[in-house]
């Protein structure tokens, strides 16, 4: 394992530790908590939006206010919640899973964390300006996002904040990548890397290759708003979108792969067997991630500015690697001894509900279909199924599973199951109606609609669903509070899991492993250890 010297000379407590501490575990927890705070803030905006849209007429806010609501909701969720929270799982777990004492370049990692925090705060500070916060959607299409379309400092603050946040996440990903490349413990070949770390590897590769495009796009937009003609005419408007979406599509996979890895890890551990099709998963993750770099033009099908043929080809091809991941999940469950604990419920919920998002994604990957449903509530339903009903379920699978490792105590099972079921009801009630609304002709990003459209009932149902989602989050927070106030100690390996992070104390010591690591002869070293002690089994059998 990688070596560490130097016992801490100054103990880190309180504010100093929060601001300056470089331990990757501490940075990860701070990233997670900050991102979760943005989740709550962005979720509040969503509840306000849904309350406004439940009925025709403006009950809560003005059109200008609503434009800020949906812009900041989407921006907060994508730039400042799901992306950083997904990376934070890796910041914590990757060094542990590969048997390292610390992440690579810990100071760079800390810079990344602070850029993310400052970026988010700056974007939100737009609410304090005269014209309000950014109001050109999370995508800030040009010319609408220019100084004529969206005047005011709030939009400039949004641009700077978003660029900083994205830069911060790039640094977090870079350190993780370097750790996987160069800090693996002896014996951990790439084909013995745990599946979650494989998922983080491709995630970080997408981050470092696609996120720079966003920074370029935002830099150009800022200059454009201050008198420099960066995006002129037809060519410029297309160039902005090509740059933005070169980032904007891979980012949605950055918000997906870590949770696939986590859910597969949970399914394997709580089925009591090794992951099925490990090599297939590794290969399909590489293929899936490469394809995801090649599909961005499907966001531009209605513009007439890109090759719809090429992008529909690559977008539809995504079904192949996606299918292999599902085969791995089902193939691991079959033949197992399945424990339906809370992490397992969320992991299965993730796969099943994400599928509605994924299949509706194949639907919109067809231009003749997309010409109708693009920029309608069909698309809103599609990406909320992938992100909220999908990725966030995967997030909670990871949270319930690794919570004891990070904190040393368990989350309550009963409250966890209650959280799960309320969340299932809430997400489906909110977003299933939106497929029908969009198909019937309801555009997205509208503050109001006419009662003559006949959309009121479905909107009311969707709004009710959003309140139920909010309730489920409250149940989770209650679970956290109760579990913390009356803690039940977890021990090093409460789940009888398979990978190296479970071979140390909960929480791990400063340099992760105090005792010697078990021998690494597969992707499941703890399972190997357990089986050899019991005198049974063997590492994964190769087919005859």
């Amino acid at each position, binding site marked *: 394992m990688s070596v560490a010297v130097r016992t801490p000379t100054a103990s880190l407590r309180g504010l100093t530790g929060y601001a300056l501490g470089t331990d990757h575990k501490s940075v990860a927890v701070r990233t997670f908590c900050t991102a979760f705070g943005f989740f709550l803030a962005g979720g509040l905006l969503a509840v306000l939006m849904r309350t406004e849209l439940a009925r025709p007429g403006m009950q809560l806010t003005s059109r200008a206010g609503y*434009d800020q609501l949906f812009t900041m909701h989407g921006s907060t969720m994508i730039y400042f919640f799901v992306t950083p929270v997904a990376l934070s799982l890796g910041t914590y777990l990757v060094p542990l899973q590969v048997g390292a004492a610390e992440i690579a370049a810990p100071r760079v990692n800390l810079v990344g964390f602070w850029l993310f925090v400052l970026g988010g705060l700056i974007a939100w500070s737009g609410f304090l300006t005269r014209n309000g916060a950014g109001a050109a959607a999370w995508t800030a299409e040009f010319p609408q996002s220019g100084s004529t*379309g969206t005047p005011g400092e709030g939009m400039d603050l949004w641009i700077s904040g978003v660029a900083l946040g994205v830069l911060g996440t790039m640094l977090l990903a870079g350190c993780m990548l370097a750790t996987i490349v160069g800090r693996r413990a002896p014996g951990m070949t790439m084909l013995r890397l745990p599946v979650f770390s494989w998922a983080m590897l491709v995630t970080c590769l997408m981050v470092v290759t696609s996120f720079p495009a966003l920074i370029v796009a935002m830099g150009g937009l800022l200059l454009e708003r201050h008198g420099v003609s960066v995006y002129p005419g037809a060519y410029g408007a297309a160039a902005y979108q090509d740059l933005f979406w070169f980032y904007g599509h891979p980012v949605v996979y950055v918000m997906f792969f870590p949770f696939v890895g986590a859910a597969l890890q949970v399914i394997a551990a709580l089925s009591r067997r090794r992951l099925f099709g490990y*090599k297939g998963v590794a290969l399909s993750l590489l293929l899936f991630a490469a394809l995801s770099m090649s599909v961005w033009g499907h966001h531009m099908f209605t513009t007439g500015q890109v090759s719809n043929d090429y992008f529909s080809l690559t977008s539809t091809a995504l079904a192949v690697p996606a299918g292999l991941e599902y085969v791995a999940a089902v193939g691991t469950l079959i033949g197992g001894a399945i424990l339906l604990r809370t992490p397992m419920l969320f992991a299965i919920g993730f796969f099943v509900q994400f599928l509605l998002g994924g299949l509706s994604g194949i639907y919109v990957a067809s231009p003749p279909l997309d010409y109708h449903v693009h920029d309608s509530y069909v698309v809103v339903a599609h990406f909320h199924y992938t992100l909220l009903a999908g990725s966030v379920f995967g997030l909670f699978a990871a949270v319930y599973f690794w919570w004891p490792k990070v904190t040393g105590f368990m989350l309550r099972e009963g409250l966890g199951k209650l959280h799960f079921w309320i969340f299932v009801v809430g997400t489906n009630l909110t977003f299933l109606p939106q497929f029908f609304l969009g198909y019937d002709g309801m555009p997205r990003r509208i503050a109001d609609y006419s009662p003559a459209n006949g959309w009121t009932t479905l909107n009311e149902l969707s709004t009710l669903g959003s309140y139920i989602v909010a309730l489920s989050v409250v149940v989770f927070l209650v679970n956290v509070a109760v579990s913390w106030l009356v803690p039940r100690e977890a021990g090093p390996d409460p789940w009888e899991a398979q990978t190296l992070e479970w071979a140390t104390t909960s929480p791990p010591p400063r340099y992760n492993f105090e005792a010697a690591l078990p021998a690494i002869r597969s992707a499941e070293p703890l399972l190997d250890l357990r089986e050899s002690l019991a005198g049974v089994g063997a590492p994964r059998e190769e087919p005859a």
Partner: protein
Amino acid sequence: MHSTQHEFGRVQDLYLPVGLAVLGIVVVAFAFAVVRYRARPGRVARPTRDRNLLEAAIATAIAGIVAVLLVTTLRANAKITDTARHGRPAFAVDVLTYRWGWQFTYPSLPGVVDRTAPNRPPVLHVPAGQTVRLRMRTEDVVHAFWVPAVRFKADAWPDTTRTFDLVFPEGSALSGHCAQFCGLKHSDMVFTVDAMAPAAFRAWAARAR
């Protein structure tokens, strides 16, 4: 005769059943696994054996489905977008979009203008059941012309004239929306389409002139 809603319907007639079938298969697979292999006293998990051939077969099957979907999609898209194949249009409309409204003018009817007025969305007058060629421009930002009844939308792009053909079903008030966020009154940027049978259309054209 092509039409966007006809092509849409043909593609969807393939995509929806395939999608629902996949959804059904996956849900049943998970349900089966969870019920059949639930932990019970005495149950021991089977050691994992990779089945590379099975995985390759499944990947190939999915690739086959993808190929079928793509062929249908690419063919339908070609029919929709290749205006040269649509024959001579029966009627032409010039569409101008701006923040925040629509202006429809008709090259064959000089002087006839349908334009957004305060609190009154404009009416787009067209013959039903015949190819209408629309040429769309924008005065400012990107807008989008969407008539759900024809299952089609197109973006109005800066410094560009966007040409597309539509065949409207008969209807006196088909709804139309701007479908690209364009600022404050994006929600209000609506219009209706009055698609008339041939006799009624001729009568309207005569009156409008």
